[in-house]
């Protein structure tokens, strides 16, 4: 089931990013075409319900594979050819959605070809035609033209390879297959067929390096403010359409002892207390976290805390800050969980310690502010769950990645046990277990995952480091369920 779920959820790359000179973080919404996960999941359900479709589906796959093989054969003696589909027309009975799926299938196949560098220029597919970003054509060596036709009961694909340098068609390929009614239905399934779908990447932003956490809170004017936590400052943004606009920044002054680190890790916590906004910030570079209170639009440090607070929760009717402490200068937490009674932002006392495990990642799931469970990735990359009364459930046998976040006691997001090309896995934890429901590709390595909200949609912020990070920038993505 897990494997099927993963396969069904290949979400194409979303929109992008740019940190412009006016300190706006811009994003581009994924196009409708890109939000095909619903249909894909519907396809998955269909596959489960009607196994015969599995057989039918292979006809499309075989056709796409044949086309991809032709491309591979054509480029087998060439290296680093820059290729993209730039024309895609549909004259068959298949719908636009089916074309989108087939295009994805073909692109995925072509991306595996080491001799070519494939660009995905498709912006949208509507009314039987693909809409491509033609401004990039000058950067290509070869252009691919695709055409779908109906040949009696068969569907045919015609592919032409055009060489920009020779200014002529250099290869033509046609193949056709008989698609059964089940497969056609599967391909043509409409977007709105099912609302119960998984997570997808809703936005992507370019950020400065060393971003450690993102949290949000409603501002005084009711507009949501997004707090970006860097080692030396908190930058506060508000959303303007799909962009983030910088509102203000607060310098963080850390005092000795300070531990220079190779990799920055930290947690930011925001909450309201007696009508005042409280913020705590801590990290692996300082022994103490800072508690800051917003008064007259100025953040004042009201206390230092000997651990990094993660959440504010209720125990026996009393408020507590709960958190953990990094091994100084390193990338993991020590084996203790701390509970600090919270009644005054200036008072730090009565801290209770409970033993857990040294962990790369920790988060606390809550329900109605009550502790539900403590989720950890230990130093052997095993996921562990501690119940609210610190009983340990059996660790997961499969190793997991080193980032984790729990959202509202309902979802848990965990990074993959891999390097360079990461994945994010979403688990349903409502019933107390760890039920995999969705996964998605991440470009590069996940640096942190943090449960949050983006434009009223609940989900997870995912900080990523790209494989060849340039210009001191990282990528921040927001994954959520668009229908929620």
């Amino acid at each position: 089931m897990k494997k099927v779920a993963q396969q069904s959820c290949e979400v194409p790359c979303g929109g992008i990013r740019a940190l412009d000179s006016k300190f706006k973080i811009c994003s581009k919404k994924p196009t409708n075409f890109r939000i095909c996960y619903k249909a894909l999941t519907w396809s998955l359900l269909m596959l489960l319900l009607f196994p015969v479709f599995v057989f039918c589906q292979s006809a499309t796959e075989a056709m796409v594979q044949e086309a991809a093989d032709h491309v591979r054969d054509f480029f087998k003696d060439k290296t680093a050819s820059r290729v993209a589909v730039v024309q895609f027309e549909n004259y068959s009975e298949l719908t636009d959605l089916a074309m989108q799926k087939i295009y994805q299938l073909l692109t995925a196949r072509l991306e595996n070809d080491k001799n070519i560098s494939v660009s995905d220029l498709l912006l949208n597919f509507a009314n039987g035609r693909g809409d491509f970003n033609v401004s990039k054509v000058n950067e290509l060596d070869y252009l691919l033209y695709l055409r779908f036709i109906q040949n009696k009961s068969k569907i045919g694909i015609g592919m032409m390879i055009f060489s920009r340098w020779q200014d002529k068609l250099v290869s033509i390929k046609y193949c056709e297959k008989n698609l059964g009614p089940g497969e056609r239905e599967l391909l043509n399934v409409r977007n709105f067929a099912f609302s119960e779908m998984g997570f997808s990447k809703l936005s992507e932003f370019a950020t400065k390096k060393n971003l450690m956490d993102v949290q949000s809170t409603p501002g005084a004017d009711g507009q949501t403010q997004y707090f970006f936590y860097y080692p030396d400052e908190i930058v506060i943004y508000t959303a303007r359409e799909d962009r983030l606009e910088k509102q203000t920044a607060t310098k963080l002054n850390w005092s000795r002892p300070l531990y220079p680190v190779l990799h920055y890790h930290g947690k930011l916590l925001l909450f309201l207390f007696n009508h005042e906004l409280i913020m705590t910030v801590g990290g692996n570079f300082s022994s103490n976290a800072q508690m800051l209170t917003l008064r007259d639009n100025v953040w004042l440090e009201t206390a230092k805390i000997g651990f990094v607070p993660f959440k504010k929760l209720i125990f026996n009717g009393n408020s507590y800050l709960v958190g953990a402490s990094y091994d100084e200068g390193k990338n993991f937490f020590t084996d203790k969980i701390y509970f600090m009674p919270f009644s005054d932002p200036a008072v730090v006392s009565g801290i209770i310690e409970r033993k857990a495990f040294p962990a790369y990642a920790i988060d606390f799931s809550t329900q109605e502010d009550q502790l539900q469970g403590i989720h950890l990735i230990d130093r052997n990359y095993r996921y562990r769950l501690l119940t609210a009364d610190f009983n340990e459930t059996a660790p997961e046998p499969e190793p997991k990645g080193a980032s984790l976040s729990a959202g509202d006691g309902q979802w848990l997001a965990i990074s993959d046990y891999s390097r360079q090309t990461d994945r994010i896995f979403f688990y349903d934890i409502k019933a107390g277990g760890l039920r995999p429901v969705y996964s998605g590709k991440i470009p590069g390595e996940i640096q942190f995952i943090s449960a949050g909200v983006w434009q009223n949609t609940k989900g997870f912020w995912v900080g990523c480091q790209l494989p060849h990070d340039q210009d001191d920038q990282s990528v921040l993505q927001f994954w959520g369920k668009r229908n929620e």
Partner: protein
Amino acid sequence: MNRQKLPAVFALPLVVLFIFAIKPHYGGEISVKLNEPTTFTLNTANYSNLILYSLIYENFFYLQKDGTITTHVFEDYRFDAGSKTLILTLKENLSFSNGKPLSAKNIQQSLKMFLGANLFAASKLNKVIKNIRSVENQILVELLTDKADILDLMTAPELVVLAENEQSFSGPFYPDEWEKNHHLTLKANPFYAGGRTYLDAVKIVFTDETLPDVFLSSPKSLRENFQEFDSGIFQNIYLCFLQGDVGQNTKIALYTLLKRFNEASGFKYRELNTLTSDEESPVAIQIKTITERRMASILKSSDIKLYILASLSFLEKDLTAFLKKNNLKIETLFIDDSQMMNFLNSTAIQYVLIDKIFQTKIPIEEKISRILKESSFNQFNVKYLRMLGELDEVKYSNSQELLMEQIARISEAIINDGFIFPLFQKQYSLYIRNVWQAVEVDYYGRPLFQKARKAND
């Protein structure tokens, strides 16, 4: 199995292991075979020390093999052409290994101490610096001339951040435990400006009980499971006569003795017939040796105490055996490089074996200048000063011929004055066990352990 192919065979499992490493693992200890130091006072006179002290003292700047200059202690550095000032901005909240603040004053003081040292690199820097001031977290280095390449001079491995307290260290590690004649354990400095190392400790071993993870050896001594790095440096060994009243016969006899010693040990050390390197020097130095009988006769009638720098302690065993076998009553005494400077003005030391390490890439004129400046000791005089000045002049003449001629003249003068005889040259490769990854080797041939970690961690 072909031994040449072994590294590739071992590389494969390492790649697999690397793929599944998610976060760098903190922990572990790497063992390094080096010469035992006498103190923790900075002394980079030889290659072994160069490595050891780089582990506990942080350089102002690092020069990578590709020529890139990096720093861990400065947030920013820039040259203000208007005021001819190099402005170094220190990172905030830095500390020494014991937690004491590392301030701009420490940087200023460290720079001044370096400039006061009897080092060629220091004298070069001295010539261009007018004044050094510190203002808050900035160090202002005023220059006498427009010297945009001052940063190159500041990459000297001897220019390190020193604390007022001898028990404080600025490097990635600090000394924790020292078992004399056996090992020295360095612990990770939690306040290291470059970011806490992945390693918990470096164990410097002085014995051959076990094969360490990192060691120096002659090039191409193929070792299974080890990767060889070209250190890019060589070590020259010279016989020096510190007093002017040593007779020529005694000098030649001692020189002959040491040449015969190398011969007897199967030419363990490469013969050196120039002051720098035989490959680059325009002149070869031919010092005629004498017969064994004559040598023995001269040495037997002389009361000879041969001082040897501690960095040449690897000679001790063989040399003692050789002297004993030849029934020569020459006393050998090993002294620390730092102690030797204190002896210079006394008559206690007449004969001494010294070593100098050089980067292969450094131009010959710089090497010869360094020998003249650092190895002429109390015999440095106006003549040498003039020769160095002339060398500087021809450097800017763009005439390679003139340059070589001047180098030849200096070599001739040094040999004729008879205070330094070149003996041997030792070349080094650095061997690192394959299991360790991300160990970088800088321009000066020093292994940098900041990001070193085991492949399977």
